[in-house]
């Protein structure tokens, strides 16, 4: 009888030890899996970010090459350049005709484009030439240096083109 009791207790202890080790291994595996999924998610987020950045660069290239905005080149290939007077006219055109806005939206997506004339000159000049972003949407912002040309003054300025792009429209 005593032997049976002793054997029983011994078996219980051994079972408990096995269970504890199994639980311990399960916890380690669970932590490792959690870590793995977190790292995978970070990589996926980074890859999505890269695709968006490339799309942003592509948008900048498209916008500054539009004949409606590009500086006169007289046959020569100029560095990226936007004509301020053309930009002002473009803005008025877009605001006056609903179809025009729809056309450029289909071409270039949901974006907001602002041209800033920075230097030389004491005052910064800013023109918002296009805005098709819905309020409340998450946006990515790109600031790209660009030459801004004033045909009235016949001068080139250092400028910045700011592009806000809806995050959802880039996927």
């Amino acid at each position, binding site marked *: 009888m005593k032997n049976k009791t002793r054997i029983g207790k011994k078996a219980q202890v051994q079972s408990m030890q096995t269970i504890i080790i199994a639980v311990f291994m399960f916890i380690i595996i669970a932590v490792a899996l959690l870590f793995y999924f977190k790292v995978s998610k970070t990589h996926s987020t*980074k890859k999505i970010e890269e695709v968006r950045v490339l799309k942003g*660069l592509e948008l900048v290239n498209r916008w500054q090459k539009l004949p409606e905005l590009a500086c006169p080149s007289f046959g020569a290939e100029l560095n990226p350049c936007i004509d301020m007077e053309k930009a002002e006219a473009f803005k008025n055109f877009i605001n006056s005709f609903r179809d025009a806005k729809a056309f450029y939206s289909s071409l270039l997506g949901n974006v907001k484009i602002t041209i800033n004339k920075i230097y030389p000159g004491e005052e910064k000049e800013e023109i918002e030439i296009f805005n098709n972003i819905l309020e409340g949407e998450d946006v990515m912002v790109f600031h790209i240096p660009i030459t801004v040309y004033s045909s009235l003054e016949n001068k*080139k300025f*250092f400028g910045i083109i700011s592009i806000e792009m809806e995050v959802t429209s880039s996927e």
Partner: protein
Amino acid sequence: MSKKGQGEIIGLALIVLILLIGFILYISLRGKGGITSSVENIQYNNLASLELSAILNTYVDECGFSVAILVKQCLKGKPCSNYEGDVCELLKNYLEKIFEKSFDKWGRRYRLYVKDNEGKINYPEEEKRRCNINEDTLGVATQAIPLSPGTAELRLEICG
């Protein structure tokens, strides 16, 4: 026998633990390089190129020509006809104003200099804004400046 069994199970647990740690390290190190650095490289090279070309195209009110020509005048030690001061100082002022409203505002560190002749143009001066010599360069743009005779290479590096 019980102790032997315990020992075996603990040994197995340790092996599993070591394998898992190795697996985790492998997964976390796997993502370095590849498309990430290619995209970043394109992005920064593009940015440097756009910034440099926009700077060089900028009109200098005091002299009546572009910054590209101002750079050439500075390197050759020549004045500009409408301006009595030091052309290299004037160039530095223009660079200061432009970078203040672009790279400095965006938190980018950079270095603009003439390759193999870093005396006259080596911008910016403040260390906190400038790339360190041993630092990794994220993007580079270059522009040849004809000096007649010879050519100088103007370089803009972005680092971080």
